[in-house]
């Protein structure tokens, strides 16, 4: 049977001790995984967990690249393990590491606490000021198209992990939260700019983005958080200089 070779960055706090100051584990283990037909990196991880080492920890859920649980740093790039075909690496050993610059929990599992806290902070839901109509709130196809890009975010955290502004400023909201803020601010049905804008119109928000564009490079869904953040910046500046909320 053909095999794919994986080199996995391992970390077990009980075995390797606590890591401080953003240090990464330097323990790597190699595995050869036999397969039939084809195999994704996630399936290879399952195989290792079932047949070789049951202690291997990783996150997954949908296996269809819509849940965002299995984002990892695979072969030097941010990828979803479930949508990465392990046979597409010309037989070379595939390095699999947890997402960089995030606190390690175990093996490929990172601590997403700050990511989701910031996500929640920008109020990622539709808010209305006016009375809701009896049935649905109408939206033109043109207005709906504005949501096409930001609505595809699956909250995998790849952009957040890749952003140098996040690395050096713990309080920066980061690309994912800001992209979500954009997703609602650009939505014709949302009427909560007065509530949401003060949350990103500051140095912990949009102005901390220096258009480095690592986020759009990292995104496994090929979204462009930079585009959303720049839109939010213009909205914030329009409000400050012209006093216009919309």
């Amino acid at each position, binding site marked *: 049977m053909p095999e794919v070779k994986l080199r996995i960055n391992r970390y077990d706090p009980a075995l390797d001790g606590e890591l401080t100051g953003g240090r990464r584990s330097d323990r790597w283990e190699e595995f050869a995984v036999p397969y039939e037909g084809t195999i994704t990196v996630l399936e290879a991880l399952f195989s290792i967990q079932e047949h070789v080492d049951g202690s291997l920890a990783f996150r997954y859920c949908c296996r269809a690249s819509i849940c965002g649980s299995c984002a990892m740093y695979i072969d030097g790039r941010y990828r979803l393990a479930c949508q990465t075909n392990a046979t597409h690496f010309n037989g070379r050993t595939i390095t699999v590491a947890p997402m960089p610059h995030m606190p390690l929990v175990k093996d490929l599992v990172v601590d997403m606490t700050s990511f989701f806290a910031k996500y929640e902070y920008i109020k990622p839901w539709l808010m209305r000021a006016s009375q809701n109509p009896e049935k649905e709130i109408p939206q033109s196809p043109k207005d709906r198209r504005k949501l096409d890009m930001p609505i595809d975010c699956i909250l995998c955290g790849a952009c957040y992990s890749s952003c140098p502004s996040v690395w050096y400023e713990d309080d920066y909201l980061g690309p994912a939260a800001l992209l979500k803020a954009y997703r609602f601010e650009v939505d014709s049905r949302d009427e909560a700019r007065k509530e949401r804008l003060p949350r990103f119109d500051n140095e912990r928000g949009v102005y901390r983005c220096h258009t480095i564009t690592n986020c759009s490079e990292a995104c496994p869904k090929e979204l462009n958080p*930079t*585009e959303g953040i720049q839109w939010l910046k213009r909205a914030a500046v329009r409000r400050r200089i012209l006093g216009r909320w919309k």
Partner: protein
Amino acid sequence: MWAWILFRISGLILVAYLFVHIVIISQGEVGGPDTLDRLFEMFENPFLAFLDFMLVAAVLYHGLNGVRVILMDFGVGIRNHKAVFWVVMLIAAGLLAWFAMVAAPHVFGSGG
């Protein structure tokens, strides 16, 4: 990311250069015209001429990449920022080559 890192580095270089520049120019005031003339002769040294060339490269990189970043602030060229970067670098390379052609006779020839 590398465009951004280089942007920061070239910015720091230009700030440092500004201080050197002020010190050199002020020698005309401090030491008199002769001192300044002697300093200017020093700049015909090929190594310093090379530094001059690198300075122009830093100015072009910083200025033109700055234009790209400003365009991004206005929402222009965000999705194809890489293409815009290379267009801007092409312009920078062209201007640098033009500068080298104009400056070369002054450095290597009798002019100055």
